[in-house]
């Protein structure tokens, strides 16, 4: 195997190339000058050309919108059928037309969205064509168009797009499917959740929550599956929390049991979930986590106790937690005491000029 040449040799090679280039240019200075001037002119012409094309395109777009928007408003008001609008649009104007409909579709819902979809129907082949593009951004645009303006017949295409090589395209398709609220696509969506890890749990949760409470059972099954990826299980737990899916409480009990081999991130998500859907009966499960060596687990346990705990039984550990080495846990403990109605303990702590005192005073200040 050849070894890599040393850095000095590589630097020398680069300098040799530069010297050769400079020597060549020096020997052909007039030609280099002309070539540079031509290239420079080409750059200027390109800039002007792009500018001029953009100005022309802008004027064309404005003229088209001036033609379409009055009719669109009539269609939305029910004074004209959608075909009245789509008949005004030439094939080569499809992109501007669909862009206009998308702007309206983002602001409307219900029957108005259906009307827009009907107006878009003759041109949705554009969306299908975009989905076949070799460029990821074009495929994402196609998924976005079909998701917003397409009818249920396009959903199989979007389900296929969940497996697109580009995670960005898959995410746009996932959002589009989620917006449909069609439970039939939920199993495919949940099966592809591990692709969206990079997007972060809040984005995935926000998407899944659009299916509503009807999705709770399937999400709970996925949460319970020990072979499911950890981020997927966390996303399912977070979605159940956002939905306030109470039937998940027995599952939470089973997974939070000390003997259950529940991974750390899932355990924390379950603490957040039980804080939302649990009752006082779940408090003993949570109390075991108040002294966990992991500060983040303690933080979530403290928060959950603030929601489920007993104002007198749980006051001592929460007071103890005001001095937690982790600032965030201490802050949550203060909030938990306030939530349990134990402002008397905070007022007592606030009298002291130490970290606990500052924490207590910060918590006691009323929100505007």
């Amino acid at each position, binding site marked *: 195997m050849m070894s890599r040449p040393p850095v000095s040799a590589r630097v020398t090679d680069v300098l040799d190339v*530069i010297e050769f280039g400079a020597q060549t240019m020096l020997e052909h200075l007039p030609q280099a000058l002309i070539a540079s001037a031509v290239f420079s002119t080409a750059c200027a012409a390109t800039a002007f050309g792009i500018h001029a094309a953009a100005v022309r395109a802008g004027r064309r777009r404005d003229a088209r919108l001036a033609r379409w928007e009055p009719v669109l408003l009539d269609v939305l008001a029910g004074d004209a059928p959608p075909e009245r609008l789509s008949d005004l649009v030439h094939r080569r104007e499809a992109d501007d037309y669909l862009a206009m409909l998308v702007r309206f579709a983002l602001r409307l819902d219900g029957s108005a969205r259906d009307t827009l979809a009907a107006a878009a129907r003759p041109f949705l082949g554009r969306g299908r064509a975009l989905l076949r593009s070799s460029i990821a951004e074009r495929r994402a645009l196609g998924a976005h168009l079909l998701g917003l303006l397409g009818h249920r017949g396009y959903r199989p295409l979007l389900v296929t797009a969940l497996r697109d090589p580009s995670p960005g395209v898959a995410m746009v398709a996932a959002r589009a499917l989620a917006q449909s609220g069609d439970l039939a696509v939920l199993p495919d969506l949940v099966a592809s959740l591990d692709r969206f890890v990079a997007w972060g749990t809040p984005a995935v949760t926000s998407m899944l929550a659009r299916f509503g409470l009807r999705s709770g059972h399937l999400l709970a099954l996925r949460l319970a599956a020990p072979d499911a990826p950890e981020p997927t299980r966390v996303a399912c737990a977070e979605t159940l929390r956002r939905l306030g899916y109470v039937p998940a409480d027995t599952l939470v009990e089973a997974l939070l049991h000390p003997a259950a081999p529940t991974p750390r991130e899932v355990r924390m998500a379950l603490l957040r979930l039980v804080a939302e859907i649990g009752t006082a009966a779940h408090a003993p499960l949570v109390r075991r986590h108040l002294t966990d060596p992991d500060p983040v687990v303690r933080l979530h346990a403290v928060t959950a106790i603030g929601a489920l705990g007993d104002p007198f039984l749980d006051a001592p550990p929460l007071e103890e937690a005001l001095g937690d080495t982790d600032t965030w846990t201490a802050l949550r403990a203060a909030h938990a005491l306030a939530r349990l109605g134990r402002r008397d303990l905070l007022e007592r702590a606030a009298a002291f000029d130490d970290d606990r005192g500052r924490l207590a005073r910060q918590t006691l200040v009323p929100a505007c």
Partner: protein
Amino acid sequence: MLDLLFRVFELSTIAYLLVVIGHYLVLSAIAIPALVRLRWRAEHFHTSEAVASASAPPISLLVPMYNEEPVCVESVRALLGVSYPSRQILVVNDGSKDGTVARLTAAFEFEETPRLPTSHLHHATVRAIYRSRIDPALWLIDKENGGKADALNAGLAYCQTPLFCMLDGDSLLANDALLRAVQPFLQDATTIAVGGTIGIVNDSAIRHGRVLDVRMPTSWVARFQALEYIRAFAASRVGWSSINALMIISGAFGLFRREPVVAVGGLDEDTVGEDMELVMRLHRYHRDRKIPYRIGYAPDAVSWTECPESLTILGRQRDRWHRGLAQILWRHRGMLYRRRYGPIGWLAFPVFLFIELIGPAYELLGLPLMAVLWWTGYAYWPIALQVYLLTLVLGATQSLAAIALEQLAFRRYTRTRDIALLMALAVIENVGYRQLTVFWRVRGLVNFLRDNQSWGEMTRTGFATEEASPLPT
């Protein structure tokens, strides 16, 4: 002997031109696909959809202010109007000697409120913390003077959100700037920092802190800077970001994940280029520990700022920037040509060292050397003139390519007259303005070598807020 000297000078001038222009055009070429993708991405990114989404993580805006009395209220009002689902604004008064605090207190009804620090970064003493009665998400941290980095560290020490945004006291964020800047964090969980674009706002139409209409400035000093900013942001940063070798995120607009910045100890108070130094330290920290990370650039996220219109103040600014560059490259010289640091070590760092830092010294030496050669009769004028013309043409090419990229992806300047003006500036700046900036940069390098750490006084004139005014014809 002089014959040889002239020959060496000729060859090295051409070589220098090739390297400088060559690297810039390569960066521009790398930037093209990214900018085209940006344009296409804009077709399915709608800020109204992003605002309605609950997925955007909370952001704290850290706004250091020192003697910002003329603009402080307008700046904060503009920030309050920025579209973002969940944000806090922490204004950090860095021991201002004017009426900054008084003006802010009167405008936003601040009252003293306790707030616990969330990390123990070093910073000057905090005198008091206030929260606005008008908007509870608006806070004022009043501290002893310690400099911009110190003020940002104070803000960071009290930051309670996973992300924070570094701003200048006079920054005017575009309404959708945060929504656009946060997208790389949503698309890639390893993202730790994202830089935005800084635009020049001098003489543009502004109303209630919103830039309504971007115009070219009327002062020539500001016009040249507008062109410089286009070169820097439309091509250079997009190019570096594409190969994950971005070394600079402007302190005027950068979005960071709080944890990694706290882990590296916050901003360094001992440099005048604390923004770039932080980015370098983040690169080193993650690469040394083999932690996957990404530092990106969101070209469509814009913050507008006022640039100096006086040559004296501009000179001080460029001096300071170059001093900062020298300090940072010296401090992180261990990254040079090290494979461990990837494209930063073997590509970006050498470019910044040899072209950005040392290059101006070479350019400045060229003039007296030419004078010596002319005096001694060894200058071959036809060759020298052609070399000089080549310098002009290639210098203009650099800028024209950047203007073309700006039009391709952003089109912030939409008037034909402004485009034509930019193109004229691309040529004119090579006769006088460029040489001035070279002089200031060399002065900065000399000051670095003399260990001069001062900022100099930067005066603010305030934004000219329009009531009603005709657009220029």
